[in-house]
């Protein structure tokens, strides 16, 4: 009996320690906000005819920064409301998990932005408006999958959706549609519509207090 008792105690301790490391902030507002920003940005980019390689790269990098900043603002608002520290260990872990793919994407974008004019126009266009968004999608999927180890509720699956979607787009090759429509459309679909759909799903499934 004693071994059962001690082993059960150890199991309880292990479970509690794992639970302590899980990120508890509600993700529905973050996903919905990101989705709304993604869709609006895609429509605005299309409407404003942002079609140059440099323009597209700078525009979506800025949109990404706004979405990221807004997401952290929402998280901070939640933690203040709950009288909990914003920069908590789980928030740090999630940020550390997100960081490598996000930084890789940012570095690639800076290089594409700086080198855009040194390539032939068609090459620069394909690089910036076809391969770059696809690369962003794959890297973002890697970031979501990595964060998913500290976040419950299907985040890893969401990451895999991006990874497989981005890879499928690479496999399809260079599309025979106007680049403006394709590039902003792909960005709007993945960073807008998918986030919005996930946010709505979370609104219906996420418990306000996700302790369990």
């Amino acid at each position, binding site marked *: 009996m004693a071994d059962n008792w001690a082993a059960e105690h*150890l199991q309880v301790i292990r479970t*509690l320690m794992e639970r302590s490391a899980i990120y508890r902030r509600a993700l529905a507002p973050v996903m919905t906000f990101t989705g709304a920003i993604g869709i609006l940005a895609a429509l605005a980019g299309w409407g404003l005819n942002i079609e140059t390689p440099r323009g597209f790269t700078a525009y979506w990098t800025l949109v990404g920064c706004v979405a990221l900043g807004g997401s952290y603002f929402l998280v901070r608002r939640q933690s203040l409301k709950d009288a909990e520290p914003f920069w908590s260990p789980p928030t740090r872990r999630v940020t550390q998990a997100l960081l490598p793919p996000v930084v890789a994407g940012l570095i690639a974008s800076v290089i594409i932005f700086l080198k855009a004019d040194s390539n032939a126009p068609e090459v620069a266009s394909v690089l910036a408006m076809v391969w770059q968004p696809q690369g962003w999608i794959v890297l973002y999927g890697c970031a979501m999958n990595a964060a998913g180890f500290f976040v419950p509720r299907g985040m890893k699956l969401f990451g895999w959706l991006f990874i497989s979607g981005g890879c499928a787009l690479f496999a399809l090759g260079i599309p025979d549609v106007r680049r403006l429509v394709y590039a902003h459309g792909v960005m709007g679909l993945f960073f807008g519509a998918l986030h919005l759909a996930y946010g709505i799903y979370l609104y219906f499934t996420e418990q306000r207090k996700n302790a369990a």
Partner: protein
Amino acid sequence: MNPEPFLQLDRVIHEKGRLAIMSLLAASPQLAFTEMRDTLNMTDGNITAHIRTLQEAGYVSVTKAFDGGRSITTYSLTAQGKKAFTSYINLLEQIVEQTKGK
């Protein structure tokens, strides 16, 4: 079976509520009161009482800070608390091993 490990178990930690608090704090450098309460599904009074006992034993330290005009109270394990928790886990493992070896 050698009963010594049983006798060495820290009575302060060896209580369901306090063990749960110690386990959470062992995995996180700091936790807010509400985080602990919501994760453990315990009442405010229960948590406060257990935290007080752990503080008196020197296992838990309390930090109060202000963020955005709100008071945030966080708890963390002291060095003594970490040591006591590690010893407690080691003793439990010893007990399991002893019984396995029988």
